[in-house]
Protein backbone atom coordinates (compact mmCIF):
# COMPACT_ATOMS: atom_id res chain seq x y z
CA UNK A 1 0.00 0.00 0.00
CA UNK A 2 2.85 2.32 0.83
CA UNK A 3 4.30 1.98 -2.66
CA UNK A 4 1.03 3.02 -4.27
CA UNK A 5 1.11 6.24 -2.35
CA UNK A 6 4.67 6.85 -3.41
CA UNK A 7 3.73 6.28 -7.03
CA UNK A 8 0.92 8.82 -6.72
CA UNK A 9 3.29 11.35 -5.18
CA UNK A 10 5.79 10.92 -7.98
CA UNK A 11 3.14 11.54 -10.58
CA UNK A 12 2.02 14.77 -8.99
CA UNK A 13 5.40 16.18 -8.10
CA UNK A 14 6.68 17.86 -11.30
CA UNK A 15 4.99 21.24 -11.22
CA UNK A 16 7.23 23.16 -13.61
CA UNK A 17 6.65 25.04 -16.87
CA UNK A 18 4.56 23.13 -19.45
CA UNK A 19 7.23 22.66 -22.15
CA UNK A 20 9.83 21.56 -19.63
CA UNK A 21 7.29 19.24 -18.09
CA UNK A 22 6.86 17.28 -21.31
CA UNK A 23 10.59 16.70 -21.39
CA UNK A 24 10.63 15.62 -17.78
CA UNK A 25 7.65 13.28 -18.17
CA UNK A 26 9.27 11.71 -21.21
CA UNK A 27 12.46 11.15 -19.27
CA UNK A 28 10.48 9.93 -16.32
CA UNK A 29 8.45 7.44 -18.33
CA UNK A 30 11.66 6.13 -19.87
CA UNK A 31 13.11 5.70 -16.39
CA UNK A 32 9.88 4.06 -15.27
CA UNK A 33 9.94 1.73 -18.23
CA UNK A 34 13.49 0.75 -17.35
CA UNK A 35 12.46 0.02 -13.81
CA UNK A 36 9.46 -2.02 -14.98
CA UNK A 37 11.80 -4.05 -17.14
CA UNK A 38 14.29 -4.68 -14.33
CA UNK A 39 11.47 -5.45 -11.90
CA UNK A 40 9.95 -8.00 -14.23
CA UNK A 41 13.35 -9.43 -15.06
CA UNK A 42 14.18 -9.89 -11.38
CA UNK A 43 10.82 -11.50 -10.74
CA UNK A 44 10.95 -13.66 -13.86
CA UNK A 45 12.19 -16.90 -12.23
CA UNK A 46 9.13 -16.88 -10.00
CA UNK A 47 6.77 -15.82 -12.78
CA UNK A 48 7.93 -18.88 -14.73
CA UNK A 49 7.89 -21.06 -11.60
CA UNK A 50 4.40 -19.88 -10.70
CA UNK A 51 3.07 -20.98 -14.07
CA UNK A 52 5.00 -24.21 -14.53
CA UNK A 53 4.98 -25.59 -10.99
CA UNK A 54 1.76 -24.13 -9.58
CA UNK A 55 -0.78 -22.62 -11.99
CA UNK A 56 -0.66 -25.20 -14.78
CA UNK A 57 -0.63 -28.23 -12.41
CA UNK A 58 -3.44 -26.65 -10.39
CA UNK A 59 -5.68 -26.21 -13.39
CA UNK A 60 -4.79 -29.48 -15.06
CA UNK A 61 -5.70 -31.30 -11.87
CA UNK A 62 -9.24 -29.93 -12.27
CA UNK A 63 -9.34 -31.55 -15.67
CA UNK A 64 -7.90 -34.85 -14.39
CA UNK A 65 -10.52 -34.93 -11.66
CA UNK A 66 -13.18 -35.28 -14.36
CA UNK A 67 -11.45 -38.26 -15.99
CA UNK A 68 -10.42 -41.84 -15.25
CA UNK A 69 -6.80 -40.93 -15.90
CA UNK A 70 -4.04 -43.24 -14.72
CA UNK A 71 -0.47 -43.66 -15.81
CA UNK A 72 -1.41 -46.98 -17.36
CA UNK A 73 -4.41 -45.74 -19.35
CA UNK A 74 -5.09 -42.44 -21.12
CA UNK A 75 -8.48 -42.26 -19.38
CA UNK A 76 -11.78 -40.86 -20.51
CA UNK A 77 -13.94 -37.94 -19.54
CA UNK A 78 -16.57 -38.97 -16.99
CA UNK A 79 -17.83 -35.63 -15.70
CA UNK A 80 -18.60 -35.54 -12.02
CA UNK A 81 -18.48 -39.32 -11.55
CA UNK A 82 -15.30 -39.22 -9.42
CA UNK A 83 -16.90 -36.74 -7.05
CA UNK A 84 -20.09 -38.82 -6.86
CA UNK A 85 -18.04 -41.92 -6.08
CA UNK A 86 -16.15 -40.05 -3.39
CA UNK A 87 -19.37 -39.18 -1.60
CA UNK A 88 -20.19 -42.89 -1.41
CA UNK A 89 -16.66 -43.96 -0.40
CA UNK A 90 -16.64 -45.09 3.23
CA UNK A 91 -12.90 -44.85 3.56
CA UNK A 92 -12.94 -41.32 2.17
CA UNK A 93 -15.29 -40.22 4.95
CA UNK A 94 -13.22 -42.06 7.49
CA UNK A 95 -10.11 -40.20 6.31
CA UNK A 96 -11.98 -36.88 6.47
CA UNK A 97 -13.07 -37.67 10.02
CA UNK A 98 -9.53 -38.63 11.08
CA UNK A 99 -8.04 -35.51 9.56
CA UNK A 100 -10.62 -33.15 11.05
CA UNK A 101 -10.23 -34.83 14.45
CA UNK A 102 -6.49 -34.29 14.26
CA UNK A 103 -6.78 -30.66 13.12
CA UNK A 104 -9.36 -29.69 15.75
CA UNK A 105 -7.05 -30.73 18.58
CA UNK A 106 -3.65 -30.15 17.08
CA UNK A 107 -4.07 -26.61 15.74
CA UNK A 108 -5.26 -24.91 18.98
CA UNK A 109 -2.91 -26.96 21.18
CA UNK A 110 -0.07 -26.16 18.80
CA UNK A 111 -0.70 -22.45 19.17
CA UNK A 112 -0.93 -22.56 22.97
CA UNK A 113 2.21 -24.66 23.39
CA UNK A 114 4.05 -22.85 20.62
CA UNK A 115 3.49 -19.40 22.11
CA UNK A 116 4.27 -20.62 25.63
CA UNK A 117 7.52 -22.26 24.52
CA UNK A 118 8.55 -19.23 22.48
CA UNK A 119 7.99 -16.96 25.48
CA UNK A 120 10.14 -19.24 27.58
CA UNK A 121 12.86 -19.27 24.95
CA UNK A 122 12.76 -15.50 24.70
CA UNK A 123 13.85 -14.98 28.32
CA UNK A 124 17.22 -13.39 28.79
CA UNK A 125 19.24 -16.09 30.50
CA UNK A 126 22.60 -17.65 29.80
CA UNK A 127 22.88 -20.66 27.55
CA UNK A 128 19.79 -19.83 25.51
CA UNK A 129 21.40 -21.16 22.31
CA UNK A 130 21.53 -24.59 23.95
CA UNK A 131 17.90 -24.49 25.09
CA UNK A 132 16.72 -23.31 21.70
CA UNK A 133 18.61 -26.10 19.98
CA UNK A 134 17.09 -28.67 22.32
CA UNK A 135 13.56 -27.50 21.56
CA UNK A 136 14.36 -27.56 17.88
CA UNK A 137 15.86 -31.07 18.03
CA UNK A 138 12.67 -33.00 17.21
CA UNK A 139 12.26 -31.20 13.89
CA UNK A 140 15.79 -32.21 12.92
CA UNK A 141 15.36 -35.93 13.53
CA UNK A 142 14.40 -37.81 10.33
CA UNK A 143 10.70 -38.71 10.31
CA UNK A 144 11.28 -42.40 9.83
CA UNK A 145 13.46 -42.54 12.94
CA UNK A 146 10.96 -40.38 14.81
CA UNK A 147 8.19 -42.81 14.00
CA UNK A 148 10.21 -45.75 15.31
CA UNK A 149 11.21 -43.90 18.48
CA UNK A 150 7.62 -43.07 19.27
CA UNK A 151 6.52 -46.63 18.60
CA UNK A 152 8.90 -47.65 21.37
CA UNK A 153 8.01 -44.87 23.75
CA UNK A 154 4.32 -45.68 23.38
CA UNK A 155 4.69 -49.47 23.33
CA UNK A 156 2.18 -50.91 25.82
CA UNK A 157 4.58 -53.64 26.98
CA UNK A 158 8.02 -52.10 27.35
CA UNK A 159 7.42 -48.44 26.44
CA UNK A 160 8.71 -45.67 28.62
CA UNK A 161 5.42 -43.80 28.87
CA UNK A 162 3.33 -46.69 30.16
CA UNK A 163 6.24 -47.64 32.39
CA UNK A 164 6.14 -44.20 33.99
CA UNK A 165 2.34 -44.31 34.24
CA UNK A 166 2.47 -47.67 36.01
CA UNK A 167 4.83 -46.33 38.67
CA UNK A 168 2.10 -43.91 39.71
CA UNK A 169 -0.50 -46.66 39.54
CA UNK A 170 -2.15 -45.90 36.20
CA UNK A 171 -2.51 -48.63 33.64
CA UNK A 172 -1.74 -46.91 30.34
CA UNK A 173 -3.72 -47.58 27.18
CA UNK A 174 -2.18 -49.46 24.27
CA UNK A 175 -1.74 -46.11 22.46
CA UNK A 176 -0.96 -46.79 18.80
CA UNK A 177 -2.54 -50.23 19.01
CA UNK A 178 -5.89 -48.87 20.11
CA UNK A 179 -8.49 -47.30 17.89
CA UNK A 180 -9.39 -44.66 20.49
CA UNK A 181 -5.84 -43.73 21.44
CA UNK A 182 -4.04 -43.83 18.09
CA UNK A 183 -5.03 -40.29 17.10
CA UNK A 184 -4.28 -38.72 20.49
CA UNK A 185 -0.88 -40.44 20.26
CA UNK A 186 -0.28 -38.81 16.90
CA UNK A 187 -1.31 -35.40 18.26
CA UNK A 188 1.17 -35.85 21.10
CA UNK A 189 3.96 -36.73 18.66
CA UNK A 190 3.17 -33.79 16.42
CA UNK A 191 3.15 -31.34 19.32
CA UNK A 192 6.59 -32.56 20.18
CA UNK A 193 7.79 -31.49 16.74
CA UNK A 194 6.56 -27.93 17.03
CA UNK A 195 10.02 -26.32 16.75
CA UNK A 196 9.51 -24.66 13.38
CA UNK A 197 6.44 -22.73 14.58
CA UNK A 198 8.30 -21.78 17.77
CA UNK A 199 11.11 -20.25 15.70
CA UNK A 200 8.55 -18.09 13.90
CA UNK A 201 6.95 -17.01 17.20
CA UNK A 202 10.41 -16.20 18.54
CA UNK A 203 11.03 -13.98 15.56
CA UNK A 204 7.69 -12.27 16.25
CA UNK A 205 8.62 -11.69 19.89
CA UNK A 206 11.89 -10.14 18.73
CA UNK A 207 9.93 -7.62 16.64
CA UNK A 208 8.10 -6.18 19.66
CA UNK A 209 9.84 -2.92 20.62
CA UNK A 210 11.46 -2.90 24.07
CA UNK A 211 9.98 0.58 24.75
CA UNK A 212 6.52 -0.86 25.39
CA UNK A 213 7.85 -3.01 28.20
CA UNK A 214 9.87 -0.13 29.63
CA UNK A 215 6.76 2.04 29.69
CA UNK A 216 4.77 -0.76 31.33
CA UNK A 217 7.50 -1.23 33.94
CA UNK A 218 7.34 2.48 34.79
CA UNK A 219 3.60 2.09 35.32
CA UNK A 220 4.27 -0.89 37.58
CA UNK A 221 2.66 -3.57 35.40
CA UNK A 222 3.23 -7.17 36.45
CA UNK A 223 4.24 -10.09 34.22
CA UNK A 224 0.66 -11.18 33.63
CA UNK A 225 -0.48 -7.70 32.60
CA UNK A 226 2.48 -7.28 30.28
CA UNK A 227 1.74 -10.62 28.63
CA UNK A 228 -1.96 -9.90 28.13
CA UNK A 229 -1.68 -6.27 27.07
CA UNK A 230 1.61 -6.10 25.17
CA UNK A 231 3.03 -9.48 24.19
CA UNK A 232 -0.07 -11.34 23.05
CA UNK A 233 -1.80 -8.49 21.15
CA UNK A 234 1.41 -7.61 19.32
CA UNK A 235 2.05 -11.26 18.56
CA UNK A 236 -1.36 -11.71 16.89
CA UNK A 237 -0.06 -11.16 13.32
CA UNK A 238 2.38 -14.03 13.83
CA UNK A 239 -0.25 -16.18 15.56
CA UNK A 240 -2.50 -15.49 12.58
CA UNK A 241 0.22 -16.60 10.18
CA UNK A 242 0.92 -19.76 12.16
CA UNK A 243 -2.79 -20.48 12.49
CA UNK A 244 -3.20 -20.46 8.71
CA UNK A 245 -0.06 -22.51 8.18
CA UNK A 246 -1.09 -24.85 11.02
CA UNK A 247 -4.48 -25.56 9.44
CA UNK A 248 -2.85 -26.27 6.08
CA UNK A 249 -0.22 -28.45 7.74
CA UNK A 250 -2.79 -30.39 9.75
CA UNK A 251 -4.75 -31.22 6.62
CA UNK A 252 -1.56 -32.36 4.91
CA UNK A 253 -0.49 -34.77 7.66
CA UNK A 254 1.30 -37.58 5.84
CA UNK A 255 4.83 -38.66 6.67
CA UNK A 256 4.38 -39.46 10.35
CA UNK A 257 1.26 -41.66 10.11
CA UNK A 258 2.54 -43.16 6.86
CA UNK A 259 5.83 -44.30 8.34
CA UNK A 260 4.23 -45.28 11.67
CA UNK A 261 1.85 -47.70 10.00
CA UNK A 262 3.93 -48.55 6.92
CA UNK A 263 1.26 -46.83 4.85
CA UNK A 264 -1.58 -48.99 6.19
CA UNK A 265 -3.30 -46.56 8.56
CA UNK A 266 -3.77 -49.24 11.22
CA UNK A 267 -5.51 -50.01 13.57
CA UNK A 268 -8.87 -50.22 11.76
CA UNK A 269 -7.98 -47.28 9.49
CA UNK A 270 -7.94 -44.97 12.51
CA UNK A 271 -4.69 -43.48 11.19
CA UNK A 272 -5.72 -43.27 7.54
CA UNK A 273 -5.37 -39.54 6.96
CA UNK A 274 -6.76 -37.68 4.00
CA UNK A 275 -3.49 -37.29 2.14
CA UNK A 276 -2.49 -40.91 2.83
CA UNK A 277 -5.68 -42.08 1.16
CA UNK A 278 -5.06 -39.63 -1.67
CA UNK A 279 -1.53 -40.96 -2.11
CA UNK A 280 -2.78 -44.56 -2.13
CA UNK A 281 -5.36 -43.81 -4.78
CA UNK A 282 -2.93 -41.94 -6.99
CA UNK A 283 0.26 -43.90 -6.65
CA UNK A 284 -0.74 -47.36 -5.39
CA UNK A 285 -3.99 -47.98 -7.25
CA UNK A 286 -3.08 -45.54 -10.05
CA UNK A 287 -6.52 -43.95 -9.91
CA UNK A 288 -5.13 -40.53 -10.65
CA UNK A 289 -8.43 -39.02 -11.73
CA UNK A 290 -10.02 -40.09 -8.46
CA UNK A 291 -7.03 -38.82 -6.48
CA UNK A 292 -7.21 -35.47 -8.30
CA UNK A 293 -10.86 -35.16 -7.31
CA UNK A 294 -9.76 -35.76 -3.71
CA UNK A 295 -7.08 -33.11 -4.09
CA UNK A 296 -9.66 -30.59 -5.22
CA UNK A 297 -12.02 -31.37 -2.38
CA UNK A 298 -9.06 -30.80 -0.04
CA UNK A 299 -8.23 -27.55 -1.79
CA UNK A 300 -11.77 -26.25 -1.41
CA UNK A 301 -11.88 -27.22 2.29
CA UNK A 302 -8.55 -25.57 3.04
CA UNK A 303 -9.42 -22.44 1.07
CA UNK A 304 -12.79 -22.12 2.84
CA UNK A 305 -11.13 -22.45 6.25
CA UNK A 306 -8.41 -19.97 5.31
CA UNK A 307 -10.99 -17.49 4.06
CA UNK A 308 -12.91 -17.90 7.32
CA UNK A 309 -9.76 -17.22 9.36
CA UNK A 310 -8.99 -14.17 7.20
CA UNK A 311 -12.47 -12.75 7.71
CA UNK A 312 -12.39 -13.19 11.49
CA UNK A 313 -8.81 -11.90 11.67
CA UNK A 314 -9.99 -8.29 11.49
CA UNK A 315 -11.47 -8.75 14.95
CA UNK A 316 -8.43 -10.15 16.70
CA UNK A 317 -5.25 -9.38 14.75
CA UNK A 318 -3.53 -6.14 15.74
CA UNK A 319 -0.81 -4.63 13.63
CA UNK A 320 1.83 -2.38 15.13
CA UNK A 321 1.41 1.27 14.31
CA UNK A 322 -2.34 0.98 13.72
Amino acid at each position, binding site marked *: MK*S*NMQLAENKNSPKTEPNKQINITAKKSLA*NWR*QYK*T*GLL*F*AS*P*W*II*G*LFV*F*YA*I*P*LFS*SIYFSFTTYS*ILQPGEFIGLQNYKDLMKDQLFWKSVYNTVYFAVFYVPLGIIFGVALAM*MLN*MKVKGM*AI*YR*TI*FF*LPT*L*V*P*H*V*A*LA*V*LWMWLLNP*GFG*LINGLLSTIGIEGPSWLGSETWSKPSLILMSL*WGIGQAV*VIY*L*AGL*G*DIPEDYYDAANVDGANWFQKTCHITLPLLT*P*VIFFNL*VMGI*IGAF*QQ*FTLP*YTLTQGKGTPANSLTFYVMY*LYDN*GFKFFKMGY*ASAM*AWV*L*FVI*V*MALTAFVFITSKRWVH*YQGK
Partner: protein
Amino acid sequence: MDAARKKKVSRFSAHIVLIIASFFFMIPFIWMVSTSLKPLTQVFTFPPEWIPKPVKWSNYIDAMNYIPFFTYLKNTIIITVFSTVGAVLSCPIVAYSFAKLKWPGRNILFVITIGVMMIPGQVTMIPLFLLFEKLGMVGTPYPLILPAFFGIPFYIFLLRQFFMGLPDSLREAAKIDGASEFRIYWQIMLPLAKPAVLAVGLFQFMASWTDFIGPLLYLTDSVQYTLSLGLQQFQSQKGSEWGLMMAVSTMMTIPVVILFFFLQKTFIKGITFSGIK
Protein backbone atom coordinates in the same frame (compact mmCIF):
# COMPACT_ATOMS: atom_id res chain seq x y z
CA MET B 1 14.37 -8.69 49.08
CA ASP B 2 16.51 -6.19 47.17
CA ALA B 3 16.22 -5.86 43.41
CA ALA B 4 19.47 -7.65 42.51
CA ARG B 5 18.57 -10.64 44.61
CA LYS B 6 15.07 -10.74 43.16
CA LYS B 7 16.58 -10.82 39.69
CA LYS B 8 18.86 -13.67 40.67
CA VAL B 9 15.93 -15.72 41.98
CA SER B 10 13.86 -15.14 38.86
CA ARG B 11 16.79 -16.12 36.66
CA PHE B 12 17.31 -19.26 38.67
CA SER B 13 13.66 -20.26 38.37
CA ALA B 14 13.77 -19.54 34.64
CA HIS B 15 16.57 -22.09 34.31
CA ILE B 16 14.62 -24.65 36.33
CA VAL B 17 11.56 -24.30 34.08
CA LEU B 18 13.70 -24.49 30.95
CA ILE B 19 15.59 -27.54 32.15
CA ILE B 20 12.42 -29.45 33.02
CA ALA B 21 10.86 -28.63 29.66
CA SER B 22 14.10 -29.45 27.81
CA PHE B 23 14.09 -32.85 29.45
CA PHE B 24 10.83 -33.80 27.69
CA PHE B 25 12.19 -32.66 24.36
CA MET B 26 15.46 -34.50 24.86
CA ILE B 27 14.21 -37.97 25.85
CA PRO B 28 13.53 -39.35 22.36
CA PHE B 29 16.79 -37.89 21.10
CA ILE B 30 18.78 -39.43 23.93
CA TRP B 31 17.02 -42.71 23.33
CA MET B 32 17.95 -42.55 19.67
CA VAL B 33 21.63 -42.04 20.44
CA SER B 34 21.60 -44.63 23.21
CA THR B 35 19.89 -47.24 20.99
CA SER B 36 22.40 -46.57 18.25
CA LEU B 37 25.05 -47.95 20.61
CA LYS B 38 23.16 -51.03 21.81
CA PRO B 39 23.23 -54.64 20.64
CA LEU B 40 19.84 -55.81 19.36
CA THR B 41 19.22 -57.86 22.50
CA GLN B 42 19.36 -54.80 24.74
CA VAL B 43 17.01 -52.64 22.71
CA PHE B 44 13.77 -53.88 24.27
CA THR B 45 14.62 -54.18 27.94
CA PHE B 46 12.48 -52.57 30.59
CA PRO B 47 13.27 -50.45 32.51
CA PRO B 48 15.37 -49.07 29.65
CA GLU B 49 19.09 -48.93 30.07
CA TRP B 50 20.10 -45.44 29.13
CA ILE B 51 23.79 -46.18 29.00
CA PRO B 52 24.46 -49.28 26.95
CA LYS B 53 26.79 -51.88 28.45
CA PRO B 54 29.03 -52.51 26.61
CA VAL B 55 28.91 -49.56 24.21
CA LYS B 56 28.61 -51.06 20.76
CA TRP B 57 30.42 -48.61 18.51
CA SER B 58 30.52 -51.20 15.76
CA ASN B 59 26.81 -50.46 15.04
CA TYR B 60 27.97 -47.43 13.12
CA ILE B 61 30.28 -49.44 10.91
CA ASP B 62 27.74 -52.24 10.48
CA ALA B 63 25.09 -49.68 9.49
CA MET B 64 27.31 -48.29 6.78
CA ASN B 65 27.70 -51.80 5.38
CA TYR B 66 24.05 -52.83 5.76
CA ILE B 67 22.87 -50.17 3.31
CA PRO B 68 25.01 -48.49 0.63
CA PHE B 69 25.49 -45.64 3.10
CA PHE B 70 27.96 -43.52 1.15
CA THR B 71 25.91 -43.73 -2.04
CA TYR B 72 22.81 -42.58 -0.17
CA LEU B 73 24.77 -39.90 1.65
CA LYS B 74 26.14 -38.61 -1.65
CA ASN B 75 22.62 -38.58 -3.17
CA THR B 76 21.23 -36.74 -0.15
CA ILE B 77 24.02 -34.17 -0.22
CA ILE B 78 23.61 -33.54 -3.95
CA ILE B 79 19.85 -32.98 -3.65
CA THR B 80 20.15 -30.88 -0.49
CA VAL B 81 23.00 -28.70 -1.69
CA PHE B 82 21.57 -28.00 -5.15
CA SER B 83 18.05 -27.30 -3.95
CA THR B 84 19.39 -24.99 -1.24
CA VAL B 85 21.57 -23.15 -3.73
CA GLY B 86 18.55 -22.89 -6.02
CA ALA B 87 16.34 -21.41 -3.32
CA VAL B 88 19.03 -18.98 -2.13
CA LEU B 89 19.70 -17.75 -5.67
CA SER B 90 16.13 -17.38 -6.88
CA CYS B 91 14.04 -16.33 -3.86
CA PRO B 92 15.96 -13.19 -2.73
CA ILE B 93 16.04 -11.57 -6.17
CA VAL B 94 12.30 -12.15 -6.67
CA ALA B 95 11.58 -10.90 -3.15
CA TYR B 96 13.70 -7.81 -3.77
CA SER B 97 11.72 -7.08 -6.90
CA PHE B 98 8.48 -7.39 -4.90
CA ALA B 99 9.75 -5.16 -2.10
CA LYS B 100 11.76 -2.43 -3.81
CA LEU B 101 11.13 -2.22 -7.55
CA LYS B 102 8.01 -0.87 -9.17
CA TRP B 103 6.35 -2.62 -12.05
CA PRO B 104 2.76 -3.07 -13.20
CA GLY B 105 0.99 -6.05 -11.68
CA ARG B 106 3.46 -6.34 -8.86
CA ASN B 107 0.98 -6.10 -6.01
CA ILE B 108 -1.50 -8.48 -7.63
CA LEU B 109 1.26 -11.01 -8.23
CA PHE B 110 2.33 -10.75 -4.61
CA VAL B 111 -1.22 -11.46 -3.42
CA ILE B 112 -1.29 -14.47 -5.77
CA THR B 113 2.04 -15.60 -4.31
CA ILE B 114 0.56 -15.56 -0.81
CA GLY B 115 -2.43 -17.47 -2.14
CA VAL B 116 -0.16 -20.09 -3.68
CA MET B 117 1.52 -20.55 -0.29
CA MET B 118 -1.82 -21.88 0.92
CA ILE B 119 -2.27 -24.52 -1.76
CA PRO B 120 -1.68 -27.95 -0.24
CA GLY B 121 1.22 -29.61 -2.05
CA GLN B 122 -0.92 -32.66 -2.74
CA VAL B 123 -3.20 -30.72 -5.07
CA THR B 124 -0.41 -30.18 -7.55
CA MET B 125 1.38 -33.45 -6.74
CA ILE B 126 -0.21 -35.59 -9.45
CA PRO B 127 -0.02 -33.14 -12.39
CA LEU B 128 3.56 -32.33 -11.39
CA PHE B 129 4.42 -35.99 -11.33
CA LEU B 130 2.94 -36.39 -14.80
CA LEU B 131 4.84 -33.33 -16.01
CA PHE B 132 8.14 -34.73 -14.79
CA GLU B 133 7.18 -38.11 -16.23
CA LYS B 134 6.69 -36.47 -19.66
CA LEU B 135 10.04 -34.75 -19.32
CA GLY B 136 11.60 -38.12 -18.56
CA MET B 137 12.77 -36.94 -15.15
CA VAL B 138 11.04 -39.52 -12.96
CA GLY B 139 13.81 -41.68 -11.58
CA THR B 140 16.25 -38.77 -11.48
CA PRO B 141 16.87 -36.23 -8.70
CA TYR B 142 15.88 -33.29 -10.94
CA PRO B 143 12.25 -33.04 -9.76
CA LEU B 144 13.62 -32.56 -6.24
CA ILE B 145 16.08 -29.84 -7.31
CA LEU B 146 14.71 -27.87 -10.27
CA PRO B 147 11.63 -26.24 -8.69
CA ALA B 148 13.82 -24.55 -6.05
CA PHE B 149 15.55 -22.55 -8.79
CA PHE B 150 12.23 -20.95 -9.72
CA GLY B 151 11.33 -19.62 -6.28
CA ILE B 152 9.37 -21.02 -3.34
CA PRO B 153 6.44 -18.85 -2.19
CA PHE B 154 7.03 -19.10 1.58
CA TYR B 155 10.65 -18.03 1.25
CA ILE B 156 9.82 -15.23 -1.17
CA PHE B 157 7.30 -13.99 1.37
CA LEU B 158 9.80 -14.09 4.27
CA LEU B 159 12.52 -12.35 2.26
CA ARG B 160 10.14 -9.72 0.95
CA GLN B 161 9.18 -8.83 4.52
CA PHE B 162 12.85 -8.42 5.34
CA PHE B 163 13.63 -6.25 2.31
CA MET B 164 10.62 -4.05 3.13
CA GLY B 165 12.27 -3.23 6.43
CA LEU B 166 15.50 -1.99 4.79
CA PRO B 167 15.71 1.78 4.15
CA ASP B 168 15.40 3.14 0.61
CA SER B 169 18.08 5.78 1.16
CA LEU B 170 20.98 3.39 0.47
CA ARG B 171 19.44 2.33 -2.78
CA GLU B 172 18.89 5.91 -3.89
CA ALA B 173 22.43 6.95 -2.96
CA ALA B 174 23.87 4.10 -5.01
CA LYS B 175 21.60 5.04 -7.89
CA ILE B 176 22.89 8.61 -7.93
CA ASP B 177 26.38 7.15 -8.10
CA GLY B 178 25.26 5.40 -11.28
CA ALA B 179 25.13 1.82 -10.04
CA SER B 180 22.93 -0.54 -12.04
CA GLU B 181 19.89 -2.15 -10.39
CA PHE B 182 21.63 -5.51 -10.39
CA ARG B 183 24.73 -4.10 -8.73
CA ILE B 184 22.63 -2.36 -6.10
CA TYR B 185 20.90 -5.64 -5.39
CA TRP B 186 24.00 -7.81 -5.44
CA GLN B 187 26.47 -5.56 -3.64
CA ILE B 188 24.31 -3.53 -1.27
CA MET B 189 20.88 -4.99 -0.58
CA LEU B 190 21.66 -8.72 -0.65
CA PRO B 191 24.49 -8.48 1.91
CA LEU B 192 22.14 -6.50 4.18
CA ALA B 193 19.57 -9.25 3.92
CA LYS B 194 22.04 -11.92 5.04
CA PRO B 195 20.05 -13.04 8.12
CA ALA B 196 16.93 -13.61 6.03
CA VAL B 197 18.85 -15.39 3.29
CA LEU B 198 20.43 -17.58 5.94
CA ALA B 199 17.02 -18.37 7.42
CA VAL B 200 15.69 -19.38 4.02
CA GLY B 201 18.79 -21.42 3.28
CA LEU B 202 18.52 -23.27 6.56
CA PHE B 203 14.78 -23.92 6.11
CA GLN B 204 15.37 -25.36 2.67
CA PHE B 205 18.39 -27.36 3.82
CA MET B 206 16.40 -29.01 6.60
CA ALA B 207 13.34 -29.62 4.44
CA SER B 208 15.46 -31.25 1.76
CA TRP B 209 17.67 -33.22 4.14
CA THR B 210 14.78 -35.04 5.83
CA ASP B 211 12.30 -35.00 2.92
CA PHE B 212 10.49 -38.29 2.61
CA ILE B 213 7.53 -37.97 0.25
CA GLY B 214 9.55 -36.29 -2.54
CA PRO B 215 12.20 -39.01 -2.85
CA LEU B 216 9.50 -41.65 -2.30
CA LEU B 217 7.65 -40.37 -5.38
CA TYR B 218 10.47 -39.56 -7.73
CA LEU B 219 13.39 -41.85 -6.94
CA THR B 220 12.52 -45.21 -8.41
CA ASP B 221 15.91 -46.88 -8.53
CA SER B 222 17.53 -47.79 -5.21
CA VAL B 223 20.89 -46.49 -6.48
CA GLN B 224 19.43 -42.98 -6.25
CA TYR B 225 17.85 -43.29 -2.79
CA THR B 226 18.44 -40.71 -0.11
CA LEU B 227 19.22 -41.48 3.52
CA SER B 228 15.65 -40.88 4.68
CA LEU B 229 14.46 -43.56 2.25
CA GLY B 230 17.40 -45.79 3.20
CA LEU B 231 16.29 -45.74 6.84
CA GLN B 232 13.25 -47.77 5.88
CA GLN B 233 15.46 -50.59 4.66
CA PHE B 234 16.48 -51.46 8.20
CA GLN B 235 12.94 -52.71 8.73
CA SER B 236 12.31 -55.94 6.89
CA GLN B 237 10.31 -59.15 7.11
CA LYS B 238 13.31 -60.95 8.58
CA GLY B 239 13.37 -58.56 11.51
CA SER B 240 14.51 -55.04 12.11
CA GLU B 241 17.99 -53.78 12.80
CA TRP B 242 17.00 -51.07 15.28
CA GLY B 243 20.48 -50.27 16.52
CA LEU B 244 21.79 -49.77 12.99
CA MET B 245 18.79 -47.69 12.00
CA MET B 246 19.31 -45.38 14.94
CA ALA B 247 23.02 -45.14 14.12
CA VAL B 248 22.17 -43.78 10.67
CA SER B 249 19.50 -41.49 12.15
CA THR B 250 22.03 -40.10 14.60
CA MET B 251 24.52 -39.48 11.81
CA MET B 252 21.78 -37.69 9.86
CA THR B 253 20.73 -35.52 12.81
CA ILE B 254 24.06 -34.38 14.26
CA PRO B 255 25.21 -32.13 11.37
CA VAL B 256 21.91 -30.24 11.30
CA VAL B 257 21.96 -29.82 15.07
CA ILE B 258 25.41 -28.27 14.93
CA LEU B 259 24.33 -26.00 12.07
CA PHE B 260 21.27 -24.81 14.01
CA PHE B 261 23.21 -24.27 17.23
CA PHE B 262 25.65 -21.86 15.62
CA LEU B 263 23.23 -20.10 13.32
CA GLN B 264 20.10 -19.84 15.47
CA LYS B 265 20.49 -16.20 16.46
CA THR B 266 21.01 -14.88 12.93
CA PHE B 267 18.41 -17.32 11.68
CA ILE B 268 15.70 -15.96 14.00
CA LYS B 269 16.69 -12.37 13.21
CA GLY B 270 16.11 -13.12 9.55
CA ILE B 271 12.42 -13.84 10.03
CA THR B 272 10.34 -10.72 10.34
CA PHE B 273 6.64 -10.07 10.14
CA SER B 274 6.65 -6.35 10.81
CA GLY B 275 6.05 -5.57 7.13
CA ILE B 276 2.71 -7.40 6.83
CA LYS B 277 -0.06 -4.96 6.03
